[in-house]
């Protein structure tokens, strides 16, 4: 199971890459593997400010659907539109081309509450 050490994580199996006040968000390798073939990423909160742990969208696999939760409070400033045509990228490259949204972080103190790779590893029992 690939868990890059430079990223932050949530217990909801999302990864977060912090770059100044911008956070890039996707789902982990573990999450994509549990979901199976992903066929649809639905983000309906673009340009909205959403609180931490609120739902910003959903990811649909053939057999199941799962909510996507904000890892940090902020404005959803970008959605990876390439996923509209090729949602399977989330399966093949979850930490790269399969990123989902970018957030303009509204409260940087929340960053400390994110998990590091070691802590996430213990969440999934890896």
């Amino acid at each position, binding site marked *: 199971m690939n868990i890059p050490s430079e990223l932050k994580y949530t217990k909801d199996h999302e990864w977060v890459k912090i770059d100044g006040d911008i956070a890039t968000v996707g789902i982990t390798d573990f999450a994509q593997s549990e979901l199976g073939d992903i066929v*649809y990423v639905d983000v*309906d909160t673009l340009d909205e400010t959403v609180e931490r742990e609120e739902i910003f969208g959903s990811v649909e*696999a053939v057999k199941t*659907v799962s909510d996507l939760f904000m890892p940090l409070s902020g404005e959803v400033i970008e959605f990876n539109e390439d996923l509209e045509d090729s949602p399977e990228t989330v399966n093949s490259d979850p930490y790269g081309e399969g990123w989902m949204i970018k957030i303009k972080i509204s409260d940087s103190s929340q960053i400390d509450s994110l998990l590091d790779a070691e802590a996430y590893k213990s969440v999934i029992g890896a």
Partner: protein
Amino acid sequence: MKKTALTHIHEALGAKLIPFAGYTMPVQYEGINIEHETVRNNVGVFDVSHMGEFLITGPNALELIQKVSSNDASKMVDGQAQYSCLPNENGGIVDDLIIYRFNEEKYLLVVNASNIDKDWDWISKHNSMNAEMRNLSDDYSLLAIQGPKAAEAMQSLTSVNLSTIKFYTFEVADFAGIEHVIISATGYTGSGGFEVYCKNSEVEQVWNKVLEAGKNYGIKPIGLAARDTLRLEMGYCLYGNDINDDTSPLEAGLGWITKFTKDFINSENLKKQKEEGVKRKLIGFELTEKGIPRHDYDIVDNDGEKIGTVTSGTMSPSLRKGIGLGYVPVEYAKTGSTINIAIRKKSIPATVVKLPFYKG
């Protein structure tokens, strides 16, 4: 949790195993889409040994079967199989099943794993004519070898000419070095192929030889997830989803297996229902916008009022769109009607279509 005789093999293949109907079953090996395509285009093999098998024998076997099942089993000849259901006394369905006729005094009933105990008790309760019943469920394994290349790929394993076994007929013959295997031209995928029944002690050899024989045809092991998308593309009912103790076979579009040429449990009421017409119907629908319907989502009219419930739904791997089955009042059931599926906060339009979704 029960295991099939092949669970250790599925584990070794890296399958994702889930509890299903009391059994540990492989839900996926490589990926649902690739497994789905393998069955549509080539050939795949499923371990569906969780299914239940009851042997009904003796001079009163047919009388019992006629009493508990909705289809007319007296029309079968030796070597024929028949899809049927067990109606209950309240207008619903105890289970759907396949009945195999070996001879006029020997029949095999193949039932859903989740209903083995319920069906056994139900049929036993109505066995006033004392037909002999044996529950073989724990002794027999079932492999479904499905796909357009199944006959060609498996031909080297048997002396029977597989291409001559007609749909819904079967042979008892040698297969993969085992004698007396039931080779049945049936399945739950709509892509053709066979279901083979053998003893638990024999199934590992059969599985291995099936994979070996299918190698040059691109055979893959297929999990329950793809089994579900394959059956749903065909509009086949799944017990527990699309049919249950409260759905009438007539509402479910199973009028073709509900034959009033004989009496059976609740046939009077079902006959009356047929004459008066049903109030709701199981329909197939395709979403006309992006989205995926799921089991238990609401079906709503254009004003957002609930008119029904989705019983099965998925993204169709073959059609690349959201498809589903659900019950709606008859006035919405016409092909071409527009309905809406409530998917979270949205209402996504859908069109009622003729089944199957996948036309091959």
